[in-house]
C-alpha cells in the first residue's frame, strides 16, 4: 500500500506532466487500436460481404469492378448485357435465384437500382431476407421506390414522399429527370450495401426519359445465388474461359480479397505509423519522468532516510511510469471509440458496410498491455537513477 501511496502522490505532485504524458499515450494507444480494428474489421466485412449472393454476371470487365458496382454499389458499371443473358443464367440448373439489376441514376448521390421484386426473396444472411419494415414493396411497372434504411435516414425521406431522380451515378442538379417517384417502403436495416440504395422497378431505370432507347432491353448485371456455391466453378469456366463477352465474378469474397491484397502495403504503412506513434508516446513517459528526477532527488532521499529500501524506490518509479500508461490507456479507449465511430460512419456512408466499434478484438487487450509494459520498461532508466540517489547528499535542501 505504501508504494501505491508514493506513486499516487508523485503523480499528483507532477500533475501537469502526468496529464500531458498520459494524453500522448491516450492518443497513441487509441490510434493504434483504431487502426488495427478498422483495418481488420473492414477487411473481414468486405471479404465476408456478399449481400446474399454468390456471384455476379456482367459485361466483360475486371471481376473487381463488377463486384464493386453490383454488390457494393460503388464504381461505374462496366457496361450492359442483354436481357437474354439474364434469362439464360436464371434457367441454369445450378442457379437458385438470379436478380437482374440496372443502374444509371441517383437521388442526391444515393444510387437508384432497378430490379425485380425477387429482391425481397433474397436472404442477405441465413434466415434474414430483405424485408420492408415500413410501407410496402414497389410494384413492377410503377414509379415506386423502396429505400434502404441508411439512404432513407440520410435523405430524410419517408413513406409517401415523392422525388425526382437525377441522371448519372453522381449527383448533378442539372440532370434532373421528369419522372416523379413515390416512396412506398423502407427496408429493415440489413447492414449490407443495400441499405444505402434506392430500389425501384427494373423498368424504371430502363425506361427513364433521356436514357438510351437501346437500354430498355438491357441490364447492368445479374446477381446470382447458387444452389451449391461449388457450382460456380462450372459457370466460371463457361463464361470466363469459353466465352469472351461476359464476366462471371465468383466467388465474391475472393474477388474482394484480391483488392485487399493489392492494398496490403498500405495496411503495413498504417501499422508502422501507429507503432511509431506508440513508441514515441512511450518515449515521452521516459523523458517526462527522467527530466523530473532532479526535483525528485530530495523526496527520494527523505523516503530512504525514513527506511524505504532502494528497490522500493526503484519499483515506485517503474510503477509510476506504468500508472501513467494505465491512465493514458483508459483515455485511449475514448480516443479509440471516437476514431472508430467516425471511421465506421464514413465507411458505412461510402460503402454500406457496417463496422462495430464496440466489437471485441484481441488488440483491445494486448495494445494496452504492450503500452503499459513498454512504459514500465522505459521507467527502468529513471528508476535506476532513483535507485542510485545519494541519500546523505540529497537530504540537504537545494538552495
Amino acid at each position: 500500500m505504501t508504494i501505491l501511496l508514493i506513486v499516487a502522490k508523485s503523480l499528483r505532485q507532477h500533475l501537469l506532466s502526468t496529464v500531458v504524458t498520459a494524453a500522448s499515450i491516450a492518443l497513441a494507444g487509441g490510434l493504434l487500436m483504431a487502426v488495427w480494428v478498422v483495418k481488420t474489421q473492414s477487411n473481414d466485412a468486405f471479404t465476408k460481404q456478399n449481400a446474399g449472393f454468390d456471384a455476379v454476371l456482367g459485361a466483360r470487365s475486371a471481376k473487381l469492378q463488377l463486384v464493386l458496382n453490383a454488390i457494393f454499389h460503388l464504381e461505374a458499371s462496366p457496361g450492359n448485357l442483354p436481357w437474354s443473358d439474364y434469362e439464360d443464367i436464371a434457367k441454369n440448373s445450378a442457379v437458385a435465384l438470379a436478380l437482374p439489376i440496372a443502374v444509371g441514376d441517383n437521388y442526391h448521390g444515393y444510387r437508384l437500382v432497378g430490379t425485380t421484386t425477387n429482391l425481397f426473396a433474397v436472404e442477405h444472411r441465413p434466415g434474414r431476407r430483405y424485408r420492408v419494415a415500413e410501407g410496402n414493396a414497389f410494384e413492377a411497372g410503377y414509379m415506386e421506390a423502396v429505400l434502404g434504411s441508411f439512404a432513407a435516414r440520410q435523405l430524410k425521406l419517408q413513406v409517401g414522399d415523392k422525388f425526382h431522380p437525377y441522371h448519372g451515378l453522381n449527383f448533378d442538379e442539372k440532370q434532373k429527370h421528369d419522372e416523379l417517384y413515390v416512396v412506398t417502403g423502407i427496408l429493415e436495416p440489413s447492414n449490407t450495401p443495400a441499405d444505402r440504395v434506392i430500389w425501384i422497378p427494373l423498368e424504371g431505370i430502363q425506361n427513364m426519359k433521356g436514357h438510351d432507347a437501346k437500354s430498355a432491353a438491357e441490364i447492368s448485371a445479374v446477381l446470382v445465388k447458387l444452389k451449391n456455391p461449388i457450382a460456380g466453378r462450372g459457370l466460371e469456366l463457361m463464361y470466363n474461359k469459353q466465352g469472351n463477352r461476359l464476366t462471371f465474378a465468383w466467388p465474391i469474397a475472393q474477388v474482394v480479397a484480391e483488392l485487399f491484397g493489392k492494398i496490403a502495403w498500405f495496411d503495413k504503412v498504417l501499422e508502422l505509423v501507429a507503432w511509431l506513434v506508440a513508441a514515441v508516446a512511450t518515449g515521452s513517459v521516459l523523458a517526462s519522468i527522467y527530466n523530473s528526477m532532479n526535483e525528485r532527488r530530495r523526496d527520494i532521499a527523505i523516503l530512504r532516510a525514513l527506511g524505504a529500501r532502494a528497490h522500493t524506490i526503484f519499483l515506485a518509479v517503474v510503477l509510476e511510469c506504468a500508472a501513467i500508461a494505465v491512465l493514458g490507456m483508459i483515455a485511449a479507449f475514448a480516443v479509440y471509440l471516437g476514431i472508430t465511430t467516425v471511421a465506421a460512419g464514413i465507411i458505412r456512408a461510402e460503402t454500406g458496410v457496417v463496422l462495430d466499434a464496440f466489437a471485441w478484438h484481441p488488440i483491445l487487450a494486448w495494445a494496452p498491455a504492450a503500452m503499459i509494459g513498454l512504459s514500465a520498461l522505459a521507467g527502468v532508466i529513471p528508476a535506476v537513477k532513483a535507485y542510485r540517489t545519494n541519500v546523505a547528499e540529497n537530504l540537504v535542501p537545494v538552495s
Partner: protein
Amino acid sequence: MPLLEISQLKKAYTSPDGGTHVVVDVPEFKLEAQAQVALSGESGSGKTTFLNLIAGILAPDTGSIKLNGLELAGLRESARDRVRATTIGYIFQTFNLLQGYTALENVLLGMSFGPGADREFAKALLKRVGLDTKLNHLPRQLSTGQQQRVAVARALANRPKLVLADEPTGNLDHANAGESLKLIREACRENGAALLLVSHDREVLGQFESVQELGKFNRAAK
C-alpha cells in the same frame, strides 16, 4: 549492554583534488538505552556524517557500530535500511517533510517502512505534539514550528529505540526552539527512546545533563 556501541569508526571522503579527507575517526562512543545525550561541535566537525553512519545512511570505511546488539557495519544497504526503518527515528534541521503529503501521511510514512502504518498511533503522536487539528494540512500550510513538530511525531512513529536529531532547532526562533527541544526530550522519554542530539547552540546544549564535545572523541575533528 549499551544501546549504541561504536568502536574504531572511520569514514573518509575523496576530495576533488583526489586526496582522502577523513571526516569521522571515533575510537569509542557509547549510548545507554533511553539516555539523552547532546553532542556539541562546530560546522564541519563531522556531526551529520557521524549521525548518518549511526543511522546506516552511510556505510563506514572501517570500525564497528553496534545498535541494540546488532552490528551495522557489516550489513548490506538494504539491511541497514531495515534497521533504520524499525529502530531509528531521525529529526533533521530542515525537517525534511515530504511536501506532497499531509501531516498525518508524513507520520504514517514514518511507520510504513518499519512496523507498518498505525493510523490511530499516528494521530495520537500528532495530538501529543499539539497538531490534532492539523492532520490533513500540507507542510506548506503549517508554520515552521508546526513543521518541526510533525518531524518529531514522524521520528517517533516507528517506535524507535534511538532518535537522532541533527540541529533540530537550527531553523527555529528562540521561543520555538526552547519549546521544540522540550517536546523532543519529553516525547523521547515517554516513548522509551534514547536521544542523541547534535547542536552547536549553547542554549540547547545547556538543557542536557550529558553533553559530549565531538571534537574530543572524533579525532578527525581535532
